[in-house]
């Protein structure tokens, strides 16, 4: 290398060289752009909350909050309109409760089995198969609930109508099994092996180890799995819209038809909906109620997780 080249090189490595300056500028610009992309996800949340609140505010100029929360009928599109959210809430809770009765025991047992009992090579096959359940489009689950599960249930409960919450709830339950089991299994498997070994060393069986060591240590992860399952069940739309009948019904009888908040939104959206009409506002109020409901569950989950993490 001659002197000239050396000089060029030392100039190039100095921070003020134009090439270096350009490069710094470019790095900065790229970082800013990537940051904006990441921040845009916050804008999505703000957009959802903002639109839902702003579009549903005019609704409360027509309907008092007291009527909304205590009226037992929801008939916003009828001549004699009632705006009580209770029947929709009732349908939502009923279908979610049935789904959880199916999904939580099955999902938890399946997760424990996959994590603690099955050998890894089997798990590699079984877990993706189970996750296929989450890949099936919800409208296909609706078909299954209406034309397979309901006729099947009618053999056992002859009085069951064509539309009912029971079959919708069961199908939603099956649908959310992978949400419950997959995350729970991840949490259980991340429990350090030496805890299991300690438990085996004092003579505990596999089942005792699972229930007294692994599940309690993985509790925060299992909680978030349950919460995700609950959010999915609360927000599930097509299965209930297809199989549960879309009739707002204040009942806790699962063999009757009912409407959930989501099914109501679909029902109204299928018709012609003038911007700013009371029907239009009512789906935003319904949507906002749903959002608040899922948010509550998420906050409870966060709180539970914090509480258990502190204990460890």
């Amino acid at each position: 290398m001659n002197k000239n080249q050396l000089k060029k090189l030392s100039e190039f490595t100095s921070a003020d060289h134009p090439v270096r300056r350009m490069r710094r500028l470019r790095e900065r610009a790229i970082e800013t752009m990537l940051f904006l992309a990441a921040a845009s996800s916050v804008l999505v949340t703000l957009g959802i909350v903002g639109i839902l609140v702003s579009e549903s505010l005019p609704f409360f100029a027509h309907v008092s909050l007291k009527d909304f929360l205590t009226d037992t009928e929801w008939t916003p599109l009828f001549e004699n309109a009632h705006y009580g959210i209770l029947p929709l809430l009732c349908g939502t809770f009923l279908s979610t409760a049935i789904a959880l009765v199916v999904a939580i025991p099955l999902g938890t047992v399946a997760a424990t089995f996959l994590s603690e009992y099955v050998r890894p090579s089997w798990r590699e096959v079984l877990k993706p198969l189970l996750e296929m359940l989450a890949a099936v489009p919800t409208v296909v689950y609706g078909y299954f609930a209406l034309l397979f599960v309901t006729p099947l249930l009618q053999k056992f409960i002859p009085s069951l109508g064509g539309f009912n919450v029971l079959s919708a709830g069961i199908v939603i339950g099956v649908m959310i099994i992978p949400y419950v089991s997959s995350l729970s299994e991840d949490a259980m498997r991340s429990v350090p092996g030496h805890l299991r070994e300690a438990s085996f060393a004092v003579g505990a069986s596999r089942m005792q180890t699972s229930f007294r060591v692994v599940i309690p240590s993985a509790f925060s992860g299992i909680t978030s799995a349950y919460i995700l399952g609950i959010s999915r069940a609360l927000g599930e739309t097509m299965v209930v819209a297809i199989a549960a009948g879309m009739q707002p019904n204040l009942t806790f009888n699962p063999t009757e038809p009912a409407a959930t908040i989501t099914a109501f939104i679909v029902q109204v959206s299928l018709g012609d909906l003038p911007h700013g009409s009371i029907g239009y506002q009512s789906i935003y109020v319904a949507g906002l109620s749903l959002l608040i409901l899922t948010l509550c569950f998420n906050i409870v989950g966060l709180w539970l997780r914090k509480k258990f993490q502190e204990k460890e």
Partner: protein
Amino acid sequence: MMLQAVRAESERITEQDILANIKRRQFWDFVFSVLGLLSLLFALVTLLALIIDLAVTGVPRINAEFFTNFPSRFPEKAGILSAWVGSLLIMFTTAFCAIPLGVAAGVYLEEYAKKNWISQIIELNIINLAGIPSITYGLMALGLFVYKLKLGQSILTAGLTLGLLVLPIIIVTTREAIRSIPNTIREASYAMGASKWQTIRYHILPYSSGGILTGVIISLSRAIGETAPLITIGALTFIAFLPASPITGEFPFISFKWLMDPFTVMPIQMFNWLSRPQPEFHVNAAATGVVLLLMTLIMNGGAIYLRSRFRKKMKW
């Protein structure tokens, strides 16, 4: 005192007691493993029943005309032409919106973000977004894209809506893929004088592309099956025409007019047929379901295969 009591107790326990105790616990262990197997089987048998039920009803209905006919009042003449074209175009739009944004966000959060309150808010927000019901995305899109931005009930609106819906999936999988790259790769790249962006561009992104691709496929298969948000933004259920062609005879040969056209998609078409009372339409619904299910299962299967292949190939 205590020690003596324990000793006295232990003397009373015979070998047989211990053996019986072990037997009992082995028995319950066995019971639980059977229970575990049963609960797995229940889920998988349900999946199988769903697939078989759908296939038995739907497959005989599928023929070439089913893909080339528009929906019709006559069930035997009805087809899903407008639905599958709509699904395809919307999937394309969704991918175009969500992939760059999601991958960029993932790269920022993994490679750039410092541990401060801003990045914490973003992370918390992404976790939250994944739990928000999909129908609220539809409501947001109806208020924002359809009425405020006046994009109408178009393919563009649908693509944007689904793009936002799958954004968290892409961000999370991108981050996981990037996180699995060991730091030595980054250090080697810096040691050769590469800048941060060069390291990302030439090392991080290529090595994580398998994982990112997996996430993209999974999110697109989710977008294909999504129904509720599209119904909410006012997708029509009966469309007997196709959107404007993206390729035109005149210069510049590519047209984006289709973005503003109304649409229907396969799940909505299926829902529409399903909500009619005639069983002939239910057969059409089943046939649409078979096509839909086949597409999502193939995409998910492909994603699982890709994931395991890349995991095997990448040995650091």
